[in-house]
């Protein structure tokens, strides 16, 4: 490239500043604040120097800033390698590069670094706004390339041309997106950030751990039912099952897992698919109880469903659940022993209550449980998001003193009392309910739907779900949290039924986001196969996809060429023939400049091909006549076209 070392004009450097800003700005939410500030300052001062036409700072100064910035990045991330530190360094260097950008070669480096930074946004987020911003940034960067190659172009013209180019690329992008063979799983592993806090259920529960989720609108998962969804109070999404209790904290017991169901399903199942947001844990959620497991999932001895790897990406799976089940065999004595364990010395009053209930009802589990649920219903218990703090014996404090609590208080104390009465019992956490989005029909389950309930073992019937919350606040399971909480309690904004407009907007927005997740981000090998089958491709293997890709791209190219040809045919026949003449000479190395007059070009051509000088002069004279003389004749045009057709330099 002959222009590579040519220097840039002021407008082009402004373009570069804009391009660098466009590449860098969307990354600011993920960069350390001081780095964002440093890069912004660098960009602003570069633009200011340019505006004031002040000379650039010396190279050692820029290098010093680069070294200081790199040390800062090293300290901040404890490394200079890896995704985050790498992106931070690129963002810094992009801004500093502008201080030494003088030639076209430097300018191209800036623009391509900008393109790379656009990609790096997707390390952090793949949402719709990020995609829109990326496309806009790509237009800006492309416009910068246009401006670099057309020193005199007006900014609006550069942007328009870049927009047209990106718009023309979009059909190709879509074809590639749909047809490019997908590989199951990502092409390369992205380093994961460890310890990123994600709200959601955990593998342990203390009083307050569920209620702190209750105000979160964050989406836990979305469900699409293949038939009518079950009633709201049947939507128990089983999650971590907590068996171990140390007197205060319930924790998951590492269950043995297998692919065979430990129970037998009865009746008709409910088919649905779940799109689970990543929660960095193993467990999957399903309606109680899953009958047909999704591929790559296993079931635990606690009836919990687990993935083989922690869920670091959005995961979509199909399940069939059955409301009625019966155990295949008697539960192992080990499981039952653990389900009766209570730490000694803790919560003496609750244990006394349990023993009293046990002897009163002669160890009849159903009656004991009914008695306990009746107590919750009849005694002045309150279902609240802001319970008073509890002491060391928190189950005792709750049952006999404060009597104000959230679902985890009720579930925990119920299980403690059941165990004290000699009935194997455990706490099940998960989500209860959800909300159907009327726009796309998906059931949306949010963190606010997090719930804890209890399970007791009934010999012959298996594990039976008992939800103490339903006894004290039936609205919680029949409708939602807002319906169950006393007036005046803070509730998640979106559950507030009064806020109809907000809810309508949110439904629409969520439907769009869900569509994006399902069809863009979730477009994996399976989706691709299903879609292509639906579109009539018999066997969507990679060969046929590749062939379809080629054919469609070819057709698209033909369409674009046909469009160009139409434009071409609209131009003056004289100009068309003249361009043909120039094209023939271009093959001889005589490239016509857009600003070169016909006579100059003719002379240049004649001196380059002396053997053809006569023909060239005749053609040139005819062109002059046809284009610049007042009288036109059809004969001249015919002759002109004929001469050009037979012209062979």
């Amino acid at each position: 490239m002959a222009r590579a070392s040519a220097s840039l004009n002021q407008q082009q450097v402004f373009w570069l500043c804009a391009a660098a800003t466009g590449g860098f700005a969307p990354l600011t939410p993920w960069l350390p604040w001081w780095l964002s500030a440093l890069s912004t300052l660098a960009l602003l001062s570069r633009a200011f120097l340019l505006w004031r036409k002040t000379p650039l700072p010396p190279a050692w100064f820029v290098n010093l800033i680069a070294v200081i910035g790199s040390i800062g990045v090293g300290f901040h991330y404890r490394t200079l390698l890896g995704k985050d530190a790498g992106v931070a360094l690129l963002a810094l260097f992009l801004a500093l590069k502008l201080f030494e950008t003088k030639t076209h070669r430097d300018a191209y480096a800036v623009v391509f670094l900008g393109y790379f930074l656009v990609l790096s946004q997707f390390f952090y987020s793949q949402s719709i706004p990020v995609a829109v911003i990326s496309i806009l940034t790509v237009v800006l960067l492309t416009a910068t390339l246009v401006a670099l190659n057309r020193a005199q172009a007006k900014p609006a013209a550069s942007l328009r041309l870049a927009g047209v180019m990106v718009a023309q690329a979009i059909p190709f992008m879509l074809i590639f997106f749909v047809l490019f063979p997908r590989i199951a799983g990502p092409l390369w592993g992205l380093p994961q950030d460890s310890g990123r806090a994600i709200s959601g259920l955990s593998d342990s529960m203390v009083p307050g751990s569920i209620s702190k989720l209750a105000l979160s609108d964050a989406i836990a998962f979305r469900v699409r039912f293949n038939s009518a969804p079950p009633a709201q109070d049947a939507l128990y999404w089983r999650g971590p099952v907590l068996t171990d209790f140390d007197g205060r904290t319930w924790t998951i017991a590492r269950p043995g897992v297998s692919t065979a169901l430990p129970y037998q399903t009865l009746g008709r199942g409910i088919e649905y698919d779940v799109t689970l947001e990543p929660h960095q844990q193993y467990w999957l959620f399903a309606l109680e109880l899953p009958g047909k497991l999704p591929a790559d999932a296993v079931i635990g001895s606690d009836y919990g469903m687990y993935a083989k790897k922690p869920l670091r990406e959005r995961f979509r799976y199909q399940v069939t659940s059955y409301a009625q089940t019966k155990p295949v065999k008697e539960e192992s004595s080990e499981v039952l022993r653990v389900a009766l364990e209570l730490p000694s010395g803790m919560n003496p009053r609750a244990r006394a209550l349990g023993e009293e209930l046990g002897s009163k009802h002669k160890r009849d589990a159903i009656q004991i449980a009914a008695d306990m649920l009746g107590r919750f219903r009849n005694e002045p218990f309150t279902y609240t998001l802001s319970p008073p703090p509890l002491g060391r014996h928190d189950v005792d404090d709750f049952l006999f003193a404060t009597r104000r609590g959230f679902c985890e208080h009720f579930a925990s104390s119920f299980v403690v009392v059941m165990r004290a009465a000699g009935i194997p019992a455990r706490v099940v956490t998960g989500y209860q309910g959800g909300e159907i989005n009327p726009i796309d029909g998906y059931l949306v389950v949010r963190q606010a739907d997090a719930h804890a309930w209890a399970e007791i073992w009934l010999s012959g019937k298996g594990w039976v779900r008992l939800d103490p919350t339903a006894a004290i606040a039936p609205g919680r399971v029949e409708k939602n949290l807002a319906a169950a909480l006393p007036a005046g309690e803070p509730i998640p904004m979106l559950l507030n039924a009064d806020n109809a407009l907000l809810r309508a907007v949110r439904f629409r927005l969520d439907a769009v986001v869900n569509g994006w997740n399902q069809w863009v981000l979730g477009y994996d090998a399976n989706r691709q196969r299903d879609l292509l089958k639906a579109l009539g491709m018999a066997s969507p293997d990679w060969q046929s996809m590749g062939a379809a890709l080629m054919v469609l791209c070819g057709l698209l190219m033909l369409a674009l060429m046909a469009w160009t040809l139409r434009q071409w045919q609209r131009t003056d026949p004289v100009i068309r023939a003249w361009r043909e003449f120039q094209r023939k000479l271009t093959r001889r190395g005589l490239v016509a400049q857009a600003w070169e007059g016909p006579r100059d070009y003719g002379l240049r051509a004649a001196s380059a091909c002396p053997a053809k000088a006569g023909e060239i002069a005749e053609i040139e004279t005819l062109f002059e006549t046809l284009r610049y003389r007042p009288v036109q004749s059809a004969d001249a045009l015919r002759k002109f076209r004929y001469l050009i057709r037979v012209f062979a330099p």
Partner: protein
Amino acid sequence: MLTPKTRSGSPSIDDVLQTANHIILGKEREIRMALACLLARGHLLIEDVPGVGKTTLAHLLAKLLGLDFQRIQFTSDLLPADILGVSVFDRDSGNFRFHPGPVFSSVILADEVNRATPKAQSALLEAMEERQVTAEGKTRPLPEPFFVIATQNPAHQIGTFPLPESQLDRFLMRIAIGYPDRAAERELLSGADRREMISALQPLLSAQAVLELQQKAMHVHAAPALIDYVQALVEHTRHAPEFDAGLSPRAALGMMASARAWAMIEGRDHLLPEDIQAILPSVAGHRLKLAVGGDMTIALRQLVESVAIP
């Protein structure tokens, strides 16, 4: 922009150019440009160092075209009356009688025009624009053709009054003559005195013939595609960041007139984009101002190279 030397349609123009090239050596293009300026009914500003032949050029053109010639040396004490003329009381008739000044000639050399005060400058420039002189309430037309060649010394600006942009605009073209090349200079040194050569010359044209040529130049055909090209060039100067202000419609008209005269000298009755490119530096150079500074010649070359011929 390299236009081949063609024989023009009018043998008289060829003769004028040929003879002039014998007197002023190695300056074919400049002589051609000066003649185009005259035939386009414009005025010429020559900006160059002393001694490169500005006066000789003016003198030569006047002589060859058969026009009367006057030279006005501009100095800081020059008064408008020194240019336009003065009324003197005539005792015989008992009336004031107007004594026409040097401006009442067909070819005027205004030497070192930037040495005079703005008042004197504007007297000349007004006469150039109006082609008439109003003195003591009476309007007197200037002879036709009327052609002013003003010279300016670009160096030594102390004690001068540089022409403001609005007055530069009165000149259709601004050119430089430049030093002759080695061969031409040698021939000049070994040859006869140029002044004597000029006085020995016979006029090749007359005032009437020049007027006819000016008329003919106005009728050179400009195709729509060519007008598009002039418009594209002018519009480009109005948007390009290199220039402070773009070319005015008057400048565009000047481009058309100059290019027509140029095409006629080339022996054509129609305009080509090359004509526009040939006269562009002379017509646009003094009307544009660079935003940043730098070389106007390069900026004009870039201007031509960044506008595609429609």
